[in-house]
């Protein structure tokens, strides 16, 4: 019999030695990717990790707290441009990164205020309005966007003789690990339970003593902090910013990643990010097929497997738990 005996054990990420060893091996293999994989994978890997941070943030908001936001590209733009301007002013990478997250988080906290009154489709429209307004502001105000030439961001300097792409990959992977660890702890704490309670029924949650205003604003703030950090990392990765990268299409890709990965699942967010980055890379020349595939994936997930890739992963694990019996 496999029983969880204490709360501490329930919180643990893995409880058996074999899964723990497998997980550790996977993490080590991913951390050492630059030393065994082809060079082309490095760029893709960095992109997946930075994307995963944002998708986790989006999932905290949509999947856990149940608040629909179509303004994600707006937070992404705020983070990216805050980071870009700080970096150009000569501020070091780590401080710019935190400042970008904080700027986006503050904006997210403000955008969260309508969520205290609005629900479902109304909230979706309000945040959509925010996202588009941010995009148009950046597209029209040259002091912010750097005009027609865009904003060039100084590259990351690697220590010693390490090649730059290897260093970028390692930094991004470390940041991804840190942010997903924080997210895991957040969702298994009282904050995560408050989010889930609000998602399932906000009136009931309020009756049980959850402070709706505080936790809805917190959900918006944390989620947009993550998205802002993603924007900063994306800006650093691209090395060049223009408002065109932050239109509504970007928000839709986020949705695809969250839904395909699996709502309310951190590891699902990683699968979703990998899906949203690797599928277009794999399709290569057939660019028109990317939206078709994304759309079909959404339909398939919602009709056949509402838990997304995380659900598939869960079922596979359950199957192998008793293998070869049953």
């Amino acid at each position, binding site marked *: 019999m496999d029983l969880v005996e204490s709360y501490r054990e329930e919180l643990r990420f893995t409880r058996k030695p074999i899964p723990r060893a497998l997980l550790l091996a996977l993490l080590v293999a991913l951390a050492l990717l630059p030393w065994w994989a082809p060079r082309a994978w490095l760029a893709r890997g960095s992109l997946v990790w930075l994307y995963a941070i944002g998708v986790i943030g989006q999932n905290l908001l*949509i999947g856990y707290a*149940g608040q*629909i936001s179509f303004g994600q590209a707006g937070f992404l733009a705020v983070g990216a441009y805050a980071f870009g301007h700080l970096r150009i002013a000569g501020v070091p990478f780590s401080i710019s990164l935190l400042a970008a997250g904080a700027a986006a988080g503050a904006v997210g906290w403000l955008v969260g205020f*309508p969520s205290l*009154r*609005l629900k*479902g*489709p*109304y909230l*979706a*429209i*309000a945040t*959509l*309005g*925010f996202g*588009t*307004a941010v995009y*148009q*502001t950046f597209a*029209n105000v040259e002091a912010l966007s750097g005009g027609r030439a865009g904003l060039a961001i100084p590259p990351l300097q690697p220590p010693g003789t390490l090649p730059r792409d290897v260093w970028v990959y390692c930094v991004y992977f470390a940041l991804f690990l840190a942010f997903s660890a924080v997210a895991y702890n957040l969702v298994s704490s009282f904050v995560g339970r408050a989010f889930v309670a609000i998602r399932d*029924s906000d*009136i*009931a949650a309020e*009756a049980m003593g959850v402070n709706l205003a505080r936790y809805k604003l917190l959900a918006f703030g944390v989620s947009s902090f993550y998205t802002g950090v993603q924007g900063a990392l994306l800006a650093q990765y691209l090395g060049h910013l223009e408002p065109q990268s932050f239109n*509504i299409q970007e928000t*839709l890709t986020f*949705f*695809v990643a969250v*839904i395909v990965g699996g709502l309310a699942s951190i590891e699902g967010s990683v699968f979703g990010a990998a899906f949203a980055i690797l599928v277009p890379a794999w399709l290569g020349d057939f*660019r*028109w*097929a*990317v*939206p*078709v*595939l*994304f*759309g*079909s*994936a*959404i*339909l398939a997930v*919602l*009709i056949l497997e*509402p838990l997304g890739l995380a659900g598939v992963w869960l079922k596979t694990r359950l199957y192998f738990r008793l293998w070869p019996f049953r």
Partner: protein
Amino acid sequence: MARFLQYALAGLSGGSLYALVALGLVLIYRSARVLNFAHADVATFGTFIAFAAVTSGLPLWIGLPLALAVGAAVAMVFYFGAVVPAQRRGATPLGLVILTLGLSLILQGFTVYRWGAEPDRFPFPISDSKVWKVGPLFVSELSAGTLSAAAVASLLLYLLTQKTRLGIAMRATSENLQAAQTLGIPTRAVLAFAWGTAAALAVVAGVFLAPALLLDPFFMLDPMFKGLAAAVLGGLNSLPGAVAGGLILGVAESLFGAYVAMEFKSTLAFVLIVAVLLLRPEGLLGREFQERV
């Protein structure tokens, strides 16, 4: 004064298209409680069907009904093929919204594949360069055509929902689904009809908008967001509200562009949405559904 009226008229003709888009969105929201994000892409797809028909030599009076039928068919197939199965699996309202995003992406990819992403010029029998002078105003043939098409479509929709048995069934279904089913109304067919009608309205808007702009696979996105703003302004479950919201938004936008700031013209719609949602979430003419725990 003449300048003011001229801009107001331009806003009115643009606003009538927003009203058509808003009518479709409200029709679907009222009956199925789904915000249809695929509305723009269904309209674009239908417009491209009309474009293909006209460029292959068919007259517009065949091409337009064909486009309407194809748009409506796409929406109905989507309803039966995706919305119904998802609802059977207990999809949440969020899930249904995302389902429409899926359809939007599929249609968009297909449109790009079939007709390419480069803008095309829509050959249309009524032009915007032919102008009549009415008093101090200049009225182009296209804006007169747009206004009358929107008026005819709204009138037909009014007659449909208020004067026919089908319209009564539609209103009953959106009022209370279970009660309608108990009374023997084939609610699924009625809902599918609502999806189809909404898509047809959007295609009308697309076909009349295309000659004014260039036709590319993303040309309906902006009008759809405006339509969404108009629907929110008028109240997401009120059909007269959608028309009023569309016209108000069109005129306000045109005047704002003329007198305040041209480059922030389209931002106005979103500022308006946020303001309306904060001050009066049910919209000008709407009435929000009560909620139970």
